[in-house]
């Protein structure tokens, strides 16, 4: 009996890892850079220090991993939100292209932006 070669299991693994990584890293980062610093609750790091942190290879790797996995997490979940929430399953081909294409495009942009910061 041949096994079904659906890409779903691998897409689900990406979704799953993305969900875990996003759950761990995004709240604190969004809190700091999206709320605490802008509202003056904490003072943001100066440019020189932040630039040195960002250009460190470990930071680049972690941030790239976060961006890629988080985007693929979004792609998978949003695809199913459109299928079920808005009942758009009949448009599954354009939706799939939009979601995973978006994730791929975002990953490329992430790579370029992060490399630029070295």
């Amino acid at each position, binding site marked *: 009996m041949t096994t079904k070669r659906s890409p779903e299991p691998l897409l689900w693994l990406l979704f799953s890892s*993305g*969900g*875990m990584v*996003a*759950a*761990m*890293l*995004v*709240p*604190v*980062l*969004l*809190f*700091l*850079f*999206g*709320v605490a*610093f*802008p*509202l003056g609750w*904490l003072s*943001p*790091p100066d*440019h*020189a220090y*932040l*630039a040195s*942190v*960002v*250009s460190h290879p470990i930071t680049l790797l972690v*941030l790239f991993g*976060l*961006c890629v996995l*988080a*985007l693929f*997490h*979004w792609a998978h*979940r*949003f695809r*199913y*939100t459109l299928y079920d*929430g*808005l*009942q758009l399953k009949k448009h599954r081909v354009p939706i799939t292209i939009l979601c995973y294409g978006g994730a791929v495009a*975002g990953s490329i*942009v*992430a790579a370029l*932006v*992060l490399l*630029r*910061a*070295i």
Partner: protein
Amino acid sequence: MSAQRLYRPPVSLTWWLRKPSYLVFVLRELSSVFIAWFVVYLLMLVYAVGSDPAAYRDFLDLSANPALVVLNVIALAFVVLHAVTWFGLAPKAMVIRLGALRVPPGVILAAHYAAWLVVSAVVAWVVLR
């Protein structure tokens, strides 16, 4: 048996408003959009940091814009919803056995929160030091 005229009740577009648990589910699913927004925001930050101090200062000013702050507060709420629901569901997918005993779901849940705390503390320390 005479011909049946089966009745098929239609599914409304607002099916997710029928029960609180359905609504929480849909909000949880929508949180993925705010995760994607965070990636965009993060890349804007990294771009500014990778430019010069002036660009970084411009980014900080932009981030203080009231509309953006409101967006990020909402995003933060959704992202925390994602994390909390994610950790809540993780024990269901992981059945870990040590010998004859199954690791209790509460332990798996606590481990996730502990990891979340540690990771957040490390990140905060790296950023704020």
